């Protein structure tokens, strides 16, 4: 065989391989879907089952879950979105919604949802959708509208001989005044801290989840619906004072600089969401959930939200939007509801939702979780959220010292973040 023929043969073979490769690549669409739950977490079972069903119904579509740790989620996602191989769809937490929508990186999935047969978009609670819609456009479907709960170590409460949350609720005494007394008694009699902030994050991480329930219990908040800072209002200062007193006077709440874990049995209570209950599956102590205690105002219902969105840069945004539609059908929302409380009214009111989490009694889900979803308001968010958070955290550190001037600190924070809220 002459060299010419060998060369010709090689060129032809290469071309044929390229054609075959490109044909197979065209046949298969891969949807990369980012989330912050590790692949081995219990919650992933439901997600994997939904993925398997979708792939079976749509041959040629492959769904890839791409895990990004929660603490780095926004940074890593942003870097990926600005690169040449962006993810197609993924989760977003409520505080990211305004920033991501304003930046124009989320795709409007309303056309896909509205044209889907039997999807019943009206089944989603309108107030709970408000962060993710602009006019007729839909930029995300919340799959978790999870109220913050009071989670407590029943064993420690019983050991200390204090009235259990159920008894206090029955007496009409489920408020921070009574609860903080109980927590102080638990600390004194058991030597264990009475209260740990959400994921121990009050001093270094997501402090909003612990302080917002305290502020709202007394009729306050960080900022209101008109983006006016109200952290220095009478109610907010009262709420902060109760928390400060638990830390530095009664010494029943974990102080700054001490690292312990409620889920390991090192504290008698914490604030957390339904998904955190998964960490108590192997707990060696009895535990239960209760609504957030009230203050001088009514019971606060504080909600954290996470949604599924499709990214504008996706090369297959229609398929990605269809996958999001599939994940949020009535059937699949029910499958996810064991850990992720839904905003589909039909699921929220169903027995399937009440029975979904075997570790919590159905009546408890109804009284505590469903009631909070129906009455709650989502945590505050703003396009300038990261800068507001940095500013607030730095100034809030002034508060986490004994003898801090709470009103003065709150005034200082409002003075610093109001210009950012106005932008």
């Amino acid at each position: 065989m002459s060299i010419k023929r060998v060369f010709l043969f090689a060129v032809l073979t290469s071309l044929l391989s390229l054609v075959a490769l490109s044909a197979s690549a065209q046949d298969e669409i891969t949807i990369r879907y980012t989330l912050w739950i590790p692949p081995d977490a219990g919650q992933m079972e439901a997600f994997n089952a939904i993925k398997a069903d979708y792939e079976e119904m749509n041959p040629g579509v492959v769904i890839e879950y791409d895990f990004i740790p929660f603490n780095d989620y926004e940074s890593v996602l942003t870097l990926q979105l600005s690169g040449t191989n962006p993810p197609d769809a993924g989760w977003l937490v409520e505080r990211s919604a305004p920033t991501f929508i304003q930046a124009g990186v989320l795709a409007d999935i309303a056309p896909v949802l509205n044209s889907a047969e039997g999807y019943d978009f009206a089944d989603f609670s309108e107030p709970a959708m408000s962060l993710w819609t602009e006019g007729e456009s839909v930029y995300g479907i919340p799959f978790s509208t999870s109220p913050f709960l009071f989670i407590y170590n029943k064993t420690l409460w019983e050991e200390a001989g204090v009235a259990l949350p159920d008894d206090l609720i029955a007496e009409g005494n489920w408020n921070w005044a009574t609860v903080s007394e109980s927590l102080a008694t638990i600390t004194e009699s058991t030597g264990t801290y009475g209260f740990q902030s959400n994921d121990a994050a009050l001093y270094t991480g997501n402090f909003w989840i612990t302080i917002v329930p305290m502020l709202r219990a007394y009729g306050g908040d960080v900022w209101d619906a008109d983006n006016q800072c109200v952290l220095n209002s009478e109610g907010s200062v009262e709420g902060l004072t109760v928390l400060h007193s638990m830390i530095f006077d009664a010494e029943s709440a974990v102080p700054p600089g001490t690292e312990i874990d409620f889920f390991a049995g090192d504290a008698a209570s914490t604030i957390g969401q339904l998904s955190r209950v998964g960490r108590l599956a192997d707990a060696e102590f009895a535990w239960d959930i209760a609504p957030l205690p009230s203050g001088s105002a009514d019971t606060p219902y504080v909600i954290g939200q996470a949604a599924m969105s499709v990214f504008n840069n996706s090369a297959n945004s229609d398929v990605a939007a269809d996958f999001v539609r599939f994940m949020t059908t009535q059937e699949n929302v029910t499958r996810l509801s064991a850990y992720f409380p839904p905003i589909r009214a039909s699921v929220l009111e169903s027995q399937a939702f009440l029975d979904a989490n075997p570790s919590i009694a159905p009546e408890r889900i109804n009284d505590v979780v469903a009631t909070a979803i129906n009455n709650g308001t989502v945590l505050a968010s703003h396009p300038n959220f990261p800068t507001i958070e940095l500013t607030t955290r730095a100034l809030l550190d002034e508060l986490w010292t004994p003898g801090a001037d709470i009103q003065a600190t709150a005034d200082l924070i409002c003075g610093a973040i109001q210009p950012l809220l106005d932008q």
Partner: protein
Amino acid sequence: MESSMMNSDSIHQSQPGRKTGDGWLNLRQRESLMGYLFIAPQMLGFFIFVLGPIIAIFIFSTQNRNLLSGINTPIGLDNYIRMMETDPFFPVVVRNSVIFTSGLVPLNVVLALVLSMLLTTKIRGVTFFRTLFFAPVITSAVAWAIVWRFLLQGDQGINSFLAMIGVEGPNWLREPGWAMASVIVTRVIKNVGLNIVILMAALQNIPSDYSEAAQVDGANLWQRIRYITIPLLGPTLMVVIVLTIIGSLKVFDHILLMTGGGPANATNVLVYYIWFNAFKTFQMGYASALAVVLFAVTMIITIVQWVLRRTYVYNED
């Protein structure tokens, strides 16, 4: 073997500039080409991964560049004006960086000098101590920071040990002054081993004759260190100081893991703030302007030290 020697001889006999026969290039050009080809991979890496980003950072610093939205608007020197006039965090961050560097560098260098002198003496167990001081250098920075964060808790770790001897320790990482001191000291313990190794190598190269002669002349230990050892260590000390200063200005992981820049921004240093602006608020343009400032500061410090070495370094070939 014989054949290779012959080839070698024939190359040596060739005159530079003469054509060697079948090629287009003469020997000198071929040798130059070979040289360039050998360094090409390194140079390519340098242009793509070092010089390119440095030039890009200067350009980005004159833009309102948002990483999330991809919007890039030229704004001239506005990022620098914001830094100097309106950003409330910038002066705090600069002050913290100065405190961190001024605390870390003298502590690290003096400790490294003292320990390297002790560890070059012939005493029992010196190998154990050399290993002990170098071990933190090869320890994971993440593991190091996390372990220290636990040891420096308010009422546990070191403080529970102090309580046993009747001392009430501070809340190390939650009180602004102590937090900065804690990150400096733990960083020094982590990295001092590297400087010890460099200085030990230099100390072992100093002939003992000078010190012995001085001793015969009546010089005491301090005088021998002050007037003989330290001047002879001059060039090495200069390198150690420059590297330690640059390393201290680049600190990031240690701060992120131990304090997250807190409490009350007391440990928020320049690189941490650059990271925050770039990847938390997505303001890549402003973060680039901050990076340019860091680049300029590092460059100025290096030049100043290079100039000062003419005055203070005696023993340089």
